[in-house]
């Protein structure tokens, strides 16, 4: 086809104004703004509406229930708007309308059907409704209560209760029907022992408490519940032995827990860091455990256990350094063997902090302390590597940290191969490449192994933190710097207080001489007749008394 004359291409918008893209974009932008502002307006309106609803209600309640069922239904539907797992069941009792509200997945439907709906649906047409409280004689359920508070109703419904409303009553009947999926009692992941119980806590608060109760049929073991978290309202249980703990300890714990001002509780750290005295210290001042037998023996020593719902660890306060070093297995092996392993653990905590720094101090500052033959051999090995000792040590430290972090994140199938790679890289090839000398590799691996012997994982992490500044100090001031840093650590440990108990200071305290039986070594159980004096329990004799 030929163009007889030159035809120019024009944009459509020159002809049709509405087709211009610029205008379209403009209009689109305006439309988006309108949509956004209308969404904001909608939110503001609903906020306003909820505020209005709240006018008549007491503080903290979003609204007041009325005697009209339809009103209540509207109010609830507004509150539970877009919560598609909240279900409503409408039926009639006698001649009145009734509604049952429940959250699917948190309640057991067969409980609802068999024990709530069946008796209610079998009520005859001429049943006279006298009030919700009368249903306690009709419904064969274990736990029910009435409540006029909307906040309670909402929280309970979301917690697994079924809420029953009847036309003509401004209250709701909360019926417990909790049945949800949870993990069964499993074995401990981090604190395994060879001999002893293999149960661990799981995420459900009631299961945890029952696991403790099973081990001690003692009415003096008290359980108090508090709710922490403005929005998550997590249940936290404080468990203690009332006739044994130091007077004032439980009140202090409860006071600190109630002071926590946070909106949700997801892990023990949320609670832990709020209740300790020194959150910046690298030492863990609260002990977390997943073994019930440890919790029970701690309760009977006079400590308090804090169980947090949806967290599989239980916090024990007060905690001292000696308790962090003890492990549950110590009580299943013979006393002499245990004493040796305890001493090894104390020694390895020292090694884990100081060994690389000691190497640096010896090699760089005081090589005269190394015996002559070894000194010559070390000097010859170090001729090949170009770095000063302190840089080598830091390099190995960084490598080990990278390696540890990497192995933690790997899926199980690959971690075996990663181990081999790590061993080859860190062990052999770094030395062959001349970057680092072989003695330092030995020292670094001994240090890493020593830090893994700690029974509490968080403590082995804090040992790593402490190692690095001490390497710096040793590279500036040699063995003298090492001694000074030991002084600083000792002072810090003695000044730490965990709920009034000195953290590290009572290791060598002569007034607590009786406690030494179970600190550095463990005497046979026949000799461990009294509770540790440090925790100040009201009664020291472990023989037990026949009282109530």
């Amino acid at each position: 086809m030929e163009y007889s004359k030159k035809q120019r291409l024009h944009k459509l918008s020159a002809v049709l104004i509405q087709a211009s893209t610029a205008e379209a974009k403009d209009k689109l932008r305006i439309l988006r703004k309108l949509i956004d502002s209308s969404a904001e307006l909608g939110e503001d309106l609903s906020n306003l509406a909820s505020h209005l609803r709240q006018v008549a209600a007491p503080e903290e309640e979003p609204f007041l229930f009325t005697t009209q069922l339809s009103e209540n239904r509207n109010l609830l539907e507004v509150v539970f708007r877009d919560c598609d797992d909240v279900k409503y069941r409408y039926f009639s009792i006698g001649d009145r309308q009734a509604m049952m509200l429940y959250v699917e997945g948190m309640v057991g439907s067969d409980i609802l059907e068999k024990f709530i709906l069946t008796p209610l649906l079998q009520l005859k047409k001429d049943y006279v409704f006298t009030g919700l409280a009368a249903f306690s004689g009709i419904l064969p359920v274990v736990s029910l209560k009435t409540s006029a508070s909307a906040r309670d109703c909402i929280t309970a419904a979301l917690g697994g209760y079924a809420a029953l409303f009847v036309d003509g009553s401004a209250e709701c009947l909360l019926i417990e029907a909790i049945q949800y999926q949870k993990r069964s009692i499993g074995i401990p992941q981090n604190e395994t022992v060879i001999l002893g119980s293999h149960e661990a806590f799981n995420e459900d608060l009631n299961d945890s408490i029952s696991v403790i109760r099973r081990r001690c049929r003692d009415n003096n073991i008290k359980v108090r519940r508090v709710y922490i978290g403005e929005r998550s309202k997590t249940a936290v249980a404080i468990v203690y032995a009332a006739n044994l703990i130091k007077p004032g300890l439980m009140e202090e714990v409860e006071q600190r827990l109630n002071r926590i001002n946070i909106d949700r509780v997801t892990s023990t750290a949320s609670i832990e860091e709020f209740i300790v005295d020194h959150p910046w210290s690298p030492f863990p001042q609260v002990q977390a455990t997943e073994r019930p037998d440890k919790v029970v023996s701690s309760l009977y020593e006079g400590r308090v256990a804090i169980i947090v719902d949806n967290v599989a660890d239980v916090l024990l306060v007060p905690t001292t350094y000696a308790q962090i070093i003890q492990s549950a297995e110590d009580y299943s092996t013979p006393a002499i063997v245990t004493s040796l392993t305890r001493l090894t653990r104390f020694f390895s905590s020292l090694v884990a902090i100081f060994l690389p720094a000691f190497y640096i101090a010896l090699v760089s500052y005081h090589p005269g302390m190394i015996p002559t033959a070894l000194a010559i051999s070390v000097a010859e090995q170090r001729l090949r590597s170009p770095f000063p000792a302190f840089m080598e040590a830091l390099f190995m430290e960084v490598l080990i940290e990278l390696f540890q972090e990497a192995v933690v994140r790997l899926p199980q199938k690959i971690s075996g191969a990663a181990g081999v790679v790590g061993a080859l890289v860190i062990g052999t090839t770094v030395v062959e490449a001349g970057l680092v000398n072989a003695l330092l590799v030995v020292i670094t691996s001994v240090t890493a192994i020593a830090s893994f012997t700690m029974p509490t994982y968080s403590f082995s992490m804090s040992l790593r933190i402490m190692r690095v500044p001490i390497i710096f100090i040793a590279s500036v001031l040699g063995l003298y710097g090492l001694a000074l840093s030991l002084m600083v650590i000792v002072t810090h440990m003695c000044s730490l207080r965990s709920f009034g108990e000195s953290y590290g200071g009572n290791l060598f305290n002569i007034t607590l001489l009786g406690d030494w039986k179970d600190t550095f070594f463990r005497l046979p159980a026949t000799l461990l007749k009294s509770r540790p004096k440090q925790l100040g329990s009201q009664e020291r004799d472990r023989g037990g008394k026949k009282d109530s």
Partner: protein
Amino acid sequence: MISKSSRTVTGYIVLVLISTLLLTGCWDRHEIQDRSFVLAVAVDLADEGLEHSTKLETFAQGGTPKPLRLSLQVLALAPQTRGENKPSKTYVISNTGRSMHEMLRDANGQNSKPLWFEHIQSIIISEAAVRKFGLTPLIDLFRRDAEVRWRTKVYITPQDARQFLDFVPPTGEAGGIFMSNISRQEKDLHIAGTNTDLGATSVRLDNKTDVVLPAIELSGKQIKVNAMAVFKKDKFVEYWDEYTIKGAKLLLGIEKAALIAFQCPLHPDETVVFEMFQQDTTVTPHIEGEQISFTVDIAMRGNISEISCSGEHDATDKTFMDKSEALFAQEVQRNIEHSLRVMQNAGVDDAGFGRNLKAYEPKTWAKIKDRWDEVFPTIPLTTHVRVSIQNTGEHK
């Protein structure tokens, strides 16, 4: 409670303090491979060992004379590769000058790494140097410095001291280590190794008692510690041979094992050797008016270790053993009397008589201590020796 501003101020002060520590540098950080290990030191007169000397071994110090020569045996580190085990070699740095410390500092000019003395093993001093200057000025630097070990071995040699540093031992280890380990042989009674290291010598010089030091000699590729150099206070007197050393040790009671050889009682041309492993020696002073005398009581226990006429008789025979014991005791007595004679002729008190008097008879000592040099040669000694043979080894 500390207010917010003072908390900030405190924070800044702490930061400044920490950075002064970290940023100002580490004055004493010298890596171990950046130090030169000095394993042995040799002190000579300046014109000894001239055949090895070069014109670089001196420095200008303002026209003062340079009588001394200091030589250092320095370890040359050989980088180790895997699987190999090359022994390290050593090399010698030498310098002449007036004071040891100046010579040392100047010797750094011949070396790439700072010289470092914390692993020094032996100090060898030539007889000529010690005759000219006495012992004290030569070892003063080593007594004073904090780096030198207190148990460094000191040797005197009648030859040039420097050639000992060139000696390469057959074991391949460094010469200084080899030479110092010779002194640690406890069983060889001809080595005067007990209480003759740097620390003990320093203590003797402080107490103004006579010093003895082992003497070492080099011949071709062999080295031997065979004699003892004796000093009157710190002036060199003479050398004593092995027999005298043995007698002196027997007298002092410091031997851990001794061999007494004497003729066989039945065959006077053959030798019987007794090996002592336990002894009990007491030296007692006796004062009668102005006359001082000493008695030494020795009880020895040991085995018969070698009989050259063994085919002829039974070593466990009682008469043989009794006769041997008497003869061994006689030999010990002879040895001790010979040593004492040598000591008294030289006027050097290595028998511990002075120390004994000072400890147990202080009143007498106070009277004669200024005349001790005259009194010591006149003191008689009575010796009582008792030898008892326990067994004769595995063979009769």
